[in-house]
């Protein structure tokens, strides 16, 4: 089932074109990796899907319904977004932070429901964060914070999860754990979109990879095809070796 579809979408930032005629589809129950060099338009594509930015042309549909038809609250329940360099601006408690993910369901002035509390606890446990649930965000390590922030995004219980560079700034062990959590979420049926700079992670954990290059989709395919030698060389300017199908970038290829 198609969870999210971009049909010839173009977008710009302050008059500068960023995306040109992007066509891509995101499947439910799969991890879709969004890769591409800096400035390729990965974050812009995610921002379009949450209506943080408006597209200049083309059509976007969420769960087979045009994006424009969604109310703010319904969209907030359908698409969960974990922004790049996500962090807590106040040192609130981990549980309190995860509970923010229930905001699209809360009525004004009403306290959190039992259901809200249950989901918050469940997501903390799912992200291996239950043991520090009572600690404040400033008392956690970067890896622990990343898991709490992911639990917050999962607490929305949205059928679509967009994660912008969630693995950046994490050590390898935490990167792998985070990607495993995203995979587990896809197994539960969620359409997971994750932007990545690390092509090894993309080739290892993604069911499908969309390669963005200069604001356009260069290829959308399974990792082995999307990240083949020709694409790596042309788009990223690298060669790679492959270990069990995992792409390991090597030296920069000659221009």
């Amino acid at each position, binding site marked *: 089932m198609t969870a999210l579809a971009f049909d010839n979408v173009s977008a710009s930032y302050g008059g500068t074109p960023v995306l040109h005629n992007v066509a891509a589809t995101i499947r439910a129950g799969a991890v879709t990796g969004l890769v591409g060099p800096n400035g390729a338009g990965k974050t812009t594509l995610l921002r379009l899907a949450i*209506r943080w930015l408006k597209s200049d042309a083309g059509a976007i549909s969420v769960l087979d319904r045009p994006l424009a038809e969604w109310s703010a609250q319904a969209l907030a329940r359908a698409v969960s977004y974990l*922004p790049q360099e*996500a962090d807590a*601006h106040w040192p609130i408690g981990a549980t309190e*932070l995860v509970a*923010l*993910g229930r905001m699209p369901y809360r009525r004004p002035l009403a306290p959190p429901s039992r259901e809200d509390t249950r989901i918050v606890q469940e997501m903390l446990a799912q992200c291996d964060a239950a043991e520090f649930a009572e600690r404040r965000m400033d008392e956690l390590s970067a890896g622990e914070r990343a898991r709490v922030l992911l639990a917050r995004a999962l607490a*929305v219980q949205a059928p679509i999860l967009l994660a912008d560079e969630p693995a950046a700034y994490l050590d390898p062990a935490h990167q792998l754990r985070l990607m495993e959590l995203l995979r587990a979420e896809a197994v539960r049926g969620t359409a997971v979109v994750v932007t990545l700079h690390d092509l090894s992670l993309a080739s290892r954990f993604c069911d499908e990879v969309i390669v963005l290059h200069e604001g356009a989709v260069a290829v959308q395919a399974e990792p082995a095809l999307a990240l083949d030698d020709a694409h790596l060389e042309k788009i990223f300017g690298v060669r790679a070796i492959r270990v069990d199908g995992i792409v390991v970038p090597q030296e920069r290829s000659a221009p």
Partner: protein
Amino acid sequence: MPHGARETGLTLALAGLALLCALASFLLGPSHLSAGQVVSGLFAPHGMASVIAREIRLPRALLGLLVGAALGASGAALQGLFRNPLAEPGVTGVASSAGLGAVVAFYFGLVSLSPLFLPALAVVGALVAAAILFILSRAGAGMVALVLGGVAVASFATALTALALSLSPNPYAMSDIVVWMMGALKDRTLGDVVFTAPLVLIGILLLLTTARGLDAFTLGEEAAHSLGIDVHSLRRRVVVGVAFATGAATAAAGAVSFVGLVVPHLLRPFYGYAPSRLILPSALGAAALVCAADIAVRLISPDEKLPLGVLTALLGAPFFVWLILRMRRET
């Protein structure tokens, strides 16, 4: 939920403290009237006690509550909006600009046409400053840029105020402005209360509507938007709410700085860092603090040579520096 019950209890205690401080402010003063005489003066048709109770003490105590509540709620909401514990009506230049608005009302004699011009122009001044900060924050200016922007706004407003003083043709008007600018609650009337109360209450109510959205701002504006928060409406409500509350408070009491900075900070150990939990308690705590500071001013110098605004600045400025040093250590 025991956590919630503890907070409710604390908030009720703060409300009680604010009322107690206001009562003390009402009962204490340089005249030799007993507490009983002041209270009965409130209901007496005429006489010395009646004048003191109704025309001097009552407006002073009520304005203490209103001004404090306005500054406390504004400080907590601004800190939530900018995700910056240094944001506050004084530091961000909102209070100075409200002051400039009020000085314009004095300077052009508008106050003699209608006393309403004083709070109205103060609110306009506050609105302009808050709007400038809002634009700075939208441009992605960081924490330091925002505080420096506030310094620039405050300096500009202070410079124009100084110019108005320097050009003032009438030495009495000048002295009026200077005394008012130092921040005080003395010599206020019930009329001042009548003009201040609705504006402050509207401002605080508007700020309270932003509470939950400001919590979502903890995750950044994009994430808040993705949670269904109307980010633009939230920013507008904070800016207008702060402008109403701080504008009216400044029109009534002049510059009473640092209250909005200190109170949310003092309350965080009890309420945590979520902005939604701090707006109402900060309003109540600051109401208590301003009433208490106003009593202190009378006790320290019975002839009232120590203005309220000077006392809060003398205590608040070192606190501000300490807060910056502590933040630097933490990052």
